[in-house]
């Protein structure tokens, strides 16, 4: 018995094409929202473990979670029957999800070092 989510993805393989960059978009919105909230509530002024502010800890954790989710997505896809078919959409989806992982690292990596609030 397959779950409804698995069944949906099987019926609409094109969803795998947008999965990686969909995750990137979701991460972008979430980080933007949390950054704004953190600056408004002065999370960047707090001092937690290792001299890191709450703002930095939250942002870096979210960026790491996005990386882990993307890697999990790539592994999940590679175990699916869609990946085994090796058709055009299947190969493109695999490559796009890997590119999305690089984009997540490239775009959100700077939260490790950049000033969080103006």
């Amino acid at each position, binding site marked *: 018995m397959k779950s409804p989510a698995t069944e949906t993805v099987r019926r609409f393989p094109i969803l795998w094409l947008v999965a990686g960059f969909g995750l990137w978009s979701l991460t972008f919105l979430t980080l933007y929202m949390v950054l704004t909230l953190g600056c408004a509530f002065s999370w960047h002024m707090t001092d937690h473990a290792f001299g890191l502010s709450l703002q930095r800890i939250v942002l870096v954790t979210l960026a790491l979670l996005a990386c882990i989710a993307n890697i999990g997505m790539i592994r999940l896809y590679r175990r699916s029957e869609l990946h085994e078919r090796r058709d055009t959409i299947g190969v493109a989806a695999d490559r796009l999800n890997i590119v999305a992982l690089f984009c997540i690292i490239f775009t959100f990596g700077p939260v490790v070092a*950049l000033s969080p609030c*103006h």
Partner: protein
Amino acid sequence: MPARNSWIKATFLTAGGAALAGCAGPLSTLDPAGPSAGAIANLFYVMFAGSVILFVLTIGLLLATLLKPGFGKSLSPRRWIVWGGLAMPVVVLTALVIFALAMGERLIASPLASAPERVEARASQWVWTFSYPDREGAADTISVLHIPAGEPVDIVITAEDVIHSFWVPRLGGKLDAIPGHENVLRLLADQPGTYGGVCAEFCGVGHANMDFVVQAHEPEDYAATVSGAATEASQ
């Protein structure tokens, strides 16, 4: 034919003159008068150079394939795509992003050993009002911002009605003026002088006329000028 050539010449001269005219003037970002605006101008020049390099490389390769049949056959299409379409833009764009982030960090008003002069800028439809909380007795000034030259000044920006944006192109970047929220922009004018400022966010029918001037004074004249402004205001 000579008539046609003179038309082409005239067009180039007019267009070139109009384009170059934008490089100077009271609102020119390409004529910086402080370190923040200088960093932004440098960023522009580096970005421009990067775009020129990519443009020349791309058009050069295109022309080479057109003018020299068989050019590039030694490389497989896959290598062309990977090196020309992926590696080259990634290297150039990564360098530009790193430079932009480094420049952006320099623009942030981080704490200094001695606290800079603070001036409050309040935007309302369609006028800028400036207050000088560090100067006791100094009155507000309308559409004229006084600052000391050669010293950093923190402009605390807010708004009373809708979102506006504070921008003095020759001194620094723009920053939004948001009702109920304070943003801090650090400016430094290298030399005494007058610099133009504008509202950079559409804020209603009077937006286009919502401008102001920044008067940078010698530090020893600054206090007297701000007090003088108070005297003028009280009369």
